[in-house]
């Protein structure tokens, strides 16, 4: 025991060093999405094979427990289906906020009545960065103004990002300028109507890359890249950028790599609009319950 204490005292500095570094690394992985995903991906590549072998052996010993958990899972899914029907009734309240369109002749019949889907709230940008691998924008609107995480954010000229976290008076927006494998915006070329994904790979703040557009499409320089409207974040047709140049990464590739000039100038962003999709809950619960049904 005495020897142990002497040992600890002799190497106290080193242990303190290790302790502080471990705290730092834990902070890095807990709070930074990019590092977390990058680490998890590489970790998976290395250890997946090992886990698979181990799991093959272990699986037989846990059949009973697996069965129990599947029954519980079934019960939980049944409950969720019902609760998703409950959620759907929220749209009845929303439907009171409608636009009626009348025919132009004298009869003034109601041609259509449309339900509000997107609600825009303006917000002042109070902090912004463009030079980091992952850039954040802080805006002066928070949960008291109705801002929630995962709302889309657009600027006067185009897409800006997604709300990441919210406090009472402020919200932090994950900028489109975020280098990460899992952050891309669903996009569409406005001339050829072809779908793709916009990603940013670091470097200059006014250029990004549009991927997954097949080689068969005829591209035009200067064509506008707009949001597809398939994600619940943005309405369709909001500009993301303009086609600057395009290449095919290698001969075997079936898709273009298109360099686009971003519509938003991230260097002098002053005001943005936070888009509240009021039907998102309904859409999401419907989509999720469908996925679960298929699974």
């Amino acid at each position, binding site marked *: 025991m005495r020897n142990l204490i002497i040992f600890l005292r002799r190497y106290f500095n080193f242990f303190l060093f290790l302790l502080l570094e471990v*705290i730092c690394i834990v902070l*890095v992985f807990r709070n*930074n999405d990019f*590092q977390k995903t990058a680490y998890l991906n590489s970790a998976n590549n290395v250890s997946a094979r090992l886990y698979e072998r181990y799991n093959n052996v272990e699986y037989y010993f846990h059949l009973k427990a697996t069965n129990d958990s599947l029954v519980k899972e079934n019960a939980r899914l049944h409950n969720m289906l019902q609760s998703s029907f409950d959620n759907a009734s929220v749209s009845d309240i929303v439907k009171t906020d409608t636009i009626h369109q009348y025919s132009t002749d004298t009869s003034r019949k109601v041609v259509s009545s449309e339900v509000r889907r997107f609600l825009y709230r303006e917000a002042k940008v109070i902090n912004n960065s463009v030079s980091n*691998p992952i850039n954040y924008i802080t805006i002066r609107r928070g949960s008291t103004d109705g801002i929630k995480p995962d709302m889309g954010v657009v600027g006067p000229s185009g897409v800006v990002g997604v709300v990441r976290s919210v406090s009472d008076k402020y919200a932090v927006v994950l900028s489109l300028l975020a280098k990460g494998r899992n952050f891309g915006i669903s996009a569409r070329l406005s001339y050829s109507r072809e779908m793709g994904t916009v990603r940013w790979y670091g470097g200059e703040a006014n250029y990004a890359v549009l991927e997954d557009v097949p080689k068969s499409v005829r591209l035009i320089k200067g064509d506008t890249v707009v949001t597809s409207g398939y994600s619940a974040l943005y309405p369709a047709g909001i500009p993301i950028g303009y086609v600057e140049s395009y290449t095919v990464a290698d001969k075997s590739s079936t898709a273009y790599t298109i360099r686009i000039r971003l519509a938003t100038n991230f260097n002098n962003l002053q005001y943005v609009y936070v888009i509240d999709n009021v039907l998102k809950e309904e859409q999401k619960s419907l989509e999720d319950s469908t996925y679960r049904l298929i699974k």
Partner: protein
Amino acid sequence: MSILLRNIIRFVLLLLLQVFVLNRIQLHQLVGFNLYMLFVLLLPFNMPRPALMLLGFFMGLSLDSFMNTMGIHAAACVFIAYLRPFIINILSPQGGFETTQKTPSMTSMGVSQFLTYIAILVFLHNLVYFPLEVFNFGNFFYLLLKILLSAAASIFLIVLYELLFFSRK
């Protein structure tokens, strides 16, 4: 001015300078301007090592909270705070530096010694900082170039800072 007060002022000054001036400069994606680690480098010679590390940790964490990069700067800062006494030991002449001046500077260490001291520690700092920030070891050459160029930029800034606040004592 007492050493304590001087260090507190330096802490605030370097933090503000880093957050509001240096982080806004974009020269090239390979060059990042970091000056905040100078706080750790200029702490007094006779400071005990646990205190050095805790102060480095505190400095790094303060900067991290400004930049949304929890833990990255802190890790690099603690690393150089831990290694600082070794480097000073290696560079110091027989019997240590003259104690007329208690903090490392060009006058107390000599110009070439001081430059070696900051060059080594800035390089070590970047060696921890950029791998954590970039977190992609596939492009090793890019990482190495970024570490070296940013170290050069930091050393340039530190020399400028030293010349600006040069004390003749």
